[in-house]
């Protein structure tokens, strides 16, 4: 953990232990705390501070079952802070504040089928959940991962996706919006995979993360398959300046996404999710 209870606004410097280019605009930073430890729950995020530039919320993308292991974040370059972050190298220092927020429902999912639907960078916040599902594979029934990327070149964690499908008895389906090069796989939005995926809707839990519009259609499709709102969990994104309930930026109806989320049981937010500009 790296939140001072005395002053939760202070950031703690972490050394960058490794940098990995994932795709043309995404990268994974491996961080090392001073005592080498960092425990968190899948779904939680950290506030990452780039010296002098700014601080942004980024989900933790590493394996939570190994708290002494690697702490990684996978980010996409979209603006000022993430651009500066992308230029960072091994040995540089990044400020870390966290972990914050709610977790994916991995306990609730025990004994059930698990359906994970993600789009784009949305796979990163779900990777810790996938690690945990794999670590305790026999506690869960079917595990289905549906993942959509814009193009084949933008598929995150390619090697791992293959390994998860091959070695760990996960049903992995990847689709791209636009096929390029030698792509022979699915083409089309990720929601088209839902009707074909093999799972038992009466006993399944779904975890969804991606752009809001993608989540909207995904929830509709999951509903059509018979998964009720109580068994759908989504990770919401809102502007965040503090992550500790002080700045007000992340509000979504009565919720503070930084504390009540980012992972919500969908029925809790359904009344607000459908509305424009909330």
């Amino acid at each position, binding site marked *: 953990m790296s939140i001072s209870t005395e002053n939760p606004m202070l950031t703690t410097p972490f*050394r960058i232990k490794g940098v990995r280019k994932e795709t043309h605009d995404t990268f994974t930073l491996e961080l090392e705390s001073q005592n080498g430890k960092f425990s968190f729950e899948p779904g939680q995020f950290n506030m990452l501070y780039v010296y002098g530039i700014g601080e942004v919320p980024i989900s933790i993308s590493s394996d939570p079952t190994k708290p002494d292991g690697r702490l990684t974040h996978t980010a996409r370059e979209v603006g000022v802070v993430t651009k500066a972050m992308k230029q960072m190298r091994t040995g540089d220092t990044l400020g870390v504040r966290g972990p914050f927020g709610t977790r994916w429902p991995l306990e609730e999912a025990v004994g059930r089928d698990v359906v994970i639907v993600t789009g784009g960078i949305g796979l990163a916040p779900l990777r810790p959940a996938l690690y945990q599902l794999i670590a305790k594979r026999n506690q869960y029934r079917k595990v289905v991962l549906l993942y959509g990327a814009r193009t084949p070149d933008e598929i995150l964690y390619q090697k791992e996706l293959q390994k998860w499908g091959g070695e760990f008895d996960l049903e992995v389906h990847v689709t791209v919006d636009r096929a390029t090069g030698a792509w022979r796989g699915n083409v089309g939005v990720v929601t088209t995979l839902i009707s074909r995926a093999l799972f038992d809707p009466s006993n399944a839990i779904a975890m969804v993360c991606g752009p809001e519009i993608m989540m909207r259609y995904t929830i509709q499709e999951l509903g059509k398959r018979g998964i009720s709102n109580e068994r759908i969990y989504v990770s919401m994104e809102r502007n965040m300046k503090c992550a500790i309930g002080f700045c007000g930026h992340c509000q979504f109806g009565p919720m503070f996404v930084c504390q009540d989320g980012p992972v919500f049981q969908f029925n809790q937010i359904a009344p607000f999710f459908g509305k424009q500009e909330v």
Partner: protein
Amino acid sequence: MSKQLSLKMPKARTERAEESKFILEASHLGQLLSALIGKGYRAIGPTVRDGAIVYDELHSLRDLPVGYTDEQAPGCYRLEKGGGRAFFNYTVGPQSWKKFLHPPSLRLWKADREDHRFQVVQEIEQTTKFAFLGVRSCELQAILIQDKVFMGGQFVDPVYQACRDNIFVVAVNCTKPGGTCFCQSMGTGPKATVGFDLALTEVLEAKAHYFVLEVGSKKGAEVLAEIPYRQADKKRIQTANRILARSAKRMGRAMDQTNLKELLYKNYEHPRWKEVASRCLSCANCTMACPTCFCTTVEDLTDLTGQHAERWRKWDSCFAMDFSYIYGGSVRRSVKSRYRQWMTHKLATWVDQFGMSGCVGCGRCITWCPVGIDITEEVRAIRGQTSKPKSPKSYKEKN
């Protein structure tokens, strides 16, 4: 604490209310101020600046707006020096105590860089001990609300807490509510009931000028022990009560609280939001003036060498377009959605977040809105009640 005082202090709730009320002669108010300053407090209170009553340091009673009255209406504030001896014959101005407890701009920390590393330096500033003189009941309630925000949750804001733990509050009960006040209907005034160290009700008669004083804490009793006072008699207590009862009936405005939260939750799509958006300038005045609005943003800076960085926290407003910015664009792009966010937060979602309304009925957002948008009128409109807000004229006539 003096012996004399400890005998007279409220020991138990069973004691008759009168026994915990005292009389402070108006001529001795200066001694209260000196006592506070003598105890190491930085005394802050109302004072006149640029045609308005603001809160700033008080060095002597001369800094108080003696003889001033204010007139407030939607989009309209006028301060008049009518003369007279009253110290507190006006209501709240554009500022609130949040500017001290939750400063508009605050450095959170500094960092120094060395090669590839940086070190964060926490500012250990000595916290000022503030004595707030002239805190109105609605403002006390606003402080209690911000306590919930900054100290009542999972995380505590250490800067707020350090300041908050050290304040001394002299409340002043409102004897002349303003044209945009509606604390009575919000249950937050006009008489201070909790959260003060000392509370004063000013009584100005032809031949007498005094305060009926209540003690709200041990700290309050200790300060009282240092100044001249006497036990209050029934007659004077009744006079003060009568003034406050009359003041409760003289509110310029009211807001019906019935099912207000449910009303707003049900009305995200009400046509009134579009109507009010056509008037609202999205200027954020209302949020800056509001004593409960707490939103902030942060700014990260470096000096020219790049060796020193700072992180600042500044008041922000949900009326700003970039407040809700995420990749792809702001969530609340229209003024309609931003006004709806603000008002729904104040009166509905706030209740779910903090267990109380986010509005204390101080009227600042009404007075300081350049186009005179009136939150009480907006509530009536959402309720489908067409009544017109009272004009400043009708308020004047009433008084």
